[in-house]
């Protein structure tokens, strides 16, 4: 079962915690908003991905089962 990251761009306020916790898959654009790698999350990064999702203060970052 693979999971993918998804950002709700309306809820996202550009807090930036996600990019700090998962730099391998989330980069920040020049305005502070996340550029998310939409590919399936490699098993090694699953824990960090959950941490990133959990750290988002607006719950904009979510994990989608695919």
């Amino acid at each position, binding site marked *: 079962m693979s999971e993918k990251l998804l950002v709700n*761009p*309306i809820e*996202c306020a550009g807090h930036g915690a996600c990019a700090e916790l998962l730099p391998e898959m989330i980069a920040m*654009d*020049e*305005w502070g*908003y996340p*550029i998310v790698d939409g590919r399936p999350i490699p098993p090694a990064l699953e824990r960090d991905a959950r941490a990133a999702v959990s750290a988002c203060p607006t719950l904009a970052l979510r994990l989608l089962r695919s």
Partner: protein
Amino acid sequence: MTTATHGAPAEDTATSLPRLLPRSGQHPEDWHAHMARHGRLPYRDRPGDLILDLSAAGLTGRGGAAFPAHRKLSAVLDAADKRRRPPVVIANGAESEPASDKDATLLWLAPHLVLDGLQLAAEAVGAEAAILYTHTDRRNDVGRRLGQAIAERVAVGADRVPVQLAEAPPRFLSGQETALVSHLAGGPAIPTFLPPRITERGLAGAPTLVQNAETLAHMALIARHGPRWFRQVGTTAEPGSMLCTIRRADGTPRVAEVPLGMPLRSLIGDMGPDRAVLIGGYHGTWVPAADAMRLTLDNASLAAVGARVGAGILITPPPDRCALTETAAAVRYLALESAGQCGPCLNGLPRIAAAVTEIAVGRQRRQTQADLERWAGLVTGRGACHHPDGTARFVRSALITFAAEIELHRRGRCSGTSRKAFLPIPRDSARTEEDWM
């Protein structure tokens, strides 16, 4: 395939156009004219029945996205069955693209076809409520006439589902599906983020079908004459006819019903090599005349130049206008019409607009075009709707098609001699929350 089983008069409806628009000029078809020409509304008395015909016909949405109509209806029907909730059907006549006039024209000239389609769609998905969403002051007194048309149908018992007229705010996004639902729910006409899709959960939590007004009109005819009839014009992959808004250099906009696959040349005329045509409106693509003359009006052909049919808008500015300057004005409008909800769009579109303006006034700096490319990439696919994507596509196509003009402007010159605006751009932008309601 059924033909004329509902008392429609014997008429060569096979390959002759127009199908949707009245044959004789600009006279709106009232109920009697509509009945005389098309016959009675052919209810199927079986939900889902029409969907098979639509699938065979290959009807795709005429609102711009070209999504297969039968799939949308199926999705709504399935959601309604699964969740045991009656769906809502909405005829989208918002036509919020300023350069487009075809839905307004259709609603003015042949409202009963749209209303027929609305009833048939409602029957097909088992809906109990229907809404016609449009600008009631867009053309003369279309609001009043639509109200009258609906009342007429109720009086003769033609409608099975009550139809409510709803007003669309004058925003570019007001025709976007989720923005439309958001507005009908009492809020501003700004998009919401999926999931769930509105076919699953939309207005008041019910499965919602949003279908372009023209698409519904086609449905009303497919229901009468069958899928094979529908396929008698158009191409195999993209069958049927469509309404186009054509703004040629010489005159006022013309709305014509044309078969898909028609050569662009026949629609916009012969054009000299240094001209360009805008295909698809402000989320569309500028295409050099040389290319356009070889293309046909269908996605398979237009894909070669990165363009799409969209809502059938074709604009050819006259040679005395500067298309680059016009583009800059259009991009400023698009930026101002951003809902301002998503960071990349909110930050990107104004900067893109400023950069295009810079180029148009001949003040581009060394990094302006590089910035534009970067920003176009940053905004694409990162909003809740496709407004930034379409804007980026429009801008990129301008940078490519008008490269020579850009160079001219950089040297302080311009090939345009008239400052009169050609592209229709609304003057009033949204200032407060009220303007979105």
